[in-house]
């Protein structure tokens, strides 16, 4: 009898682990690691600046790191984040007083500022700040109570891309995603933010504060049967596009530009109705161990030298106007980073948990139908 119970328990546990083993996929773990190693190692007296960013996202480029290190006689150490939420958790649990510079986005910036996790910035100490587009400085998330806490760094958009070999007409409206003509060849994105905001743009609602979620839901349901599939990762889009399974769809400015560079017949447009825009910000952590150095680093990140170098290596659009002006018009058009486009973007703003929950549920309903 006892054995039977034990057996039952063992089988039960096995089942439980099976169920959760498949339900919980491992998100890629990340570990703090030194960026720009080599030449500067072994000098313990140099100050060490701790930077938190995404992996392989500009600031940890070895050449860029080395340049800053030698100019300022310091050492840069990168810690990587897997999500913005993780960065917020890092700041809340011991990051203050330990980390120097971090990259929060508008989804967590207001929370981080409110909780006193970030240092107020004196923008007059940033020599390159005057060159940053005013449009970004005016976005509400980077400041609170008239004080600035974050500096815009790079930006991009999510608009429409299409195959110029197979589609001869000039597409300039978001309504192409609702066009019966392209039924079975459209690739919409599987992302609740992109879905809700794009439908709001098509309906003429404010994408950041949509007035009628029901209309948005119906608009998305109407769009659903026209798709080949919903794509999730950039890699999926590339494959479907190359196979001509998808000929038009929602796409990122950055990836379209690099696909065009690789010889794909792709054209990126920001529709006349507008498109979704995003910005990444740098911020200095409250009580940063090397505050002055941290400010210098942020200044370096928005400098002409760094921004020009990164965009030429295929990075996202620079916020530095001088750099943007120095790029050729053709390049800017392909990459969707002209000033005209910039003015047509709706930058994703901060949404609280309730809004996110509602949008996500709306999107689940559309997908489940």
């Amino acid at each position: 009898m006892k054995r039977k119970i034990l057996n039952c328990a063992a089988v039960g546990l096995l089942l439980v682990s099976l169920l959760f083993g498949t339900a919980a996929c491992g998100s890629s773990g990340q570990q703090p690691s030194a960026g720009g190693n080599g030449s500067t190692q072994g000098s313990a007296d140099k100050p060490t600046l701790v930077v938190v960013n995404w992996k392989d996202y500009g600031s940890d480029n070895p050449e860029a790191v080395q340049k800053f290190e030698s100019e300022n006689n310091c050492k840069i150490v990168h810690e990587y984040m897997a999500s913005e939420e993780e960065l917020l958790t890092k700041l809340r649990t011991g990051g203050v007083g330990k980390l120097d510079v971090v990259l929060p986005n508008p989804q967590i910036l207001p929370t981080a500022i409110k909780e006193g996790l970030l240092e107020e910035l004196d923008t007059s100490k940033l020599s390159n700040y005057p060159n940053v587009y005013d449009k970004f400085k005016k976005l509400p998330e980077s400041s609170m109570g008239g004080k600035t806490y974050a500096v815009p760094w790079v930006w991009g958009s999510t608009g429409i891309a299409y195959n110029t070999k197979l589609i001869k007409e000039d597409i300039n409206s978001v309504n192409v995603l609702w066009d019966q003509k392209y039924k079975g060849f459209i690739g919409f994105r599987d992302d609740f933010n992109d879905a809700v905001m794009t439908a709001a743009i098509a309906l003429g609602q404010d994408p950041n504060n949509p007035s009628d979620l029901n209309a948005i839901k119906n608009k998305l349901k109407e769009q659903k049967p026209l798709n080949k599939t919903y794509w999730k990762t950039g890699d999926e889009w590339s494959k479907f596009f190359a196979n001509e399974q998808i000929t038009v769809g929602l796409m990122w400015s950055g990836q379209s530009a690099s696909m065009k560079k690789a010889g794909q017949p792709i054209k990126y447009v920001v529709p006349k109705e507008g498109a979704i825009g995003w910005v990444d910000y740098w911020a200095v952590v409250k009580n940063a161990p090397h505050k002055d150095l941290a400010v210098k680093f942020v200044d370096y990140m928005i400098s002409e030298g760094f921004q020009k170098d990164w965009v030429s290596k295929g990075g996202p659009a620079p916020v530095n106007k001088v750099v943007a002006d120095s790029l050729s018009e053709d390049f800017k058009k392909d990459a969707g980073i002209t000033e005209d486009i910039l003015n047509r973007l709706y930058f994703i703003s901060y949404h609280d948990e309730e809004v996110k929950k509602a949008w996500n549920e709306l999107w689940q309903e559309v997908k489940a139908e």
Partner: protein
Amino acid sequence: MKKKALLVSPAMFILIAFAVVPLFIMLYFSFISDGGVPGFTLENYARFFSKPLYLALTWKTIKMSALVTLISILVGYPMAYIIAKIIKSGREILLLLIIIPFWSSQLVRAYSWMNLLRDGGILQDFLAKLHLFKGGELGILFTQTAVIIGLVHIFCPYMIITSYMTLEKIDDSVLEASKSLGANPITTFLRVILPMSKAGIVTGAILIFVPCLGSFVEPRILGGVNGSVIGTVIQDQFFEIYGWNFGAAIAFILLAMVLVSMGVMSAVNRRGEENG
């Protein structure tokens, strides 16, 4: 008895530390409000049952898992029978071939199916060469059929292995006895082989049905616009909006359903044993 306990303890420790404790942590989370309001709440569970969406997706997932299990039985059991009873040599190689796919990641296999099944893909080319396919589009990828194919490929080996293990144990002399007593092959199969190997089928079915309920990789990649299942909803909760509490609640509702269906299955099994 003491010795036994000592021998079991490492396994028990691993199970408790890595399955039972995390499970209770999840259970705890499922009773906490997503909005950060402190204290015990049932709102996550209430939310699941208040929207038709979640129940509809759960039902869809159960049907899908049942179909995958059924197909796996129809494909896997005969395969296991052939390996165990009909062929005389090369069993090890066949079993190895069945196990080899386990060595590559589920994600890679899903992507491989995408290339095979897509319009203008490998399968379409192959069929065209055989003159079985005449123009147009294949239309398999991004449908429920593609999801079922992908899942059967992942899970069928469980059925083959568990069935093989029970079939192999059946003594050939029992089959000969059945024959000499005048039973035809069908009667022998239905009254001797099937009852003696039923345990393997049931175990295999459980090993397939349960993880199928939680699957999300194949539905998402192969299912296209209609790829939503309850597993993808749970995944979105955890990775898109950090709704861990609601995600945990859905997972527990699913677990409760699994345990109930297991109870039913084992009751059926026991009754079968008593009658047989």
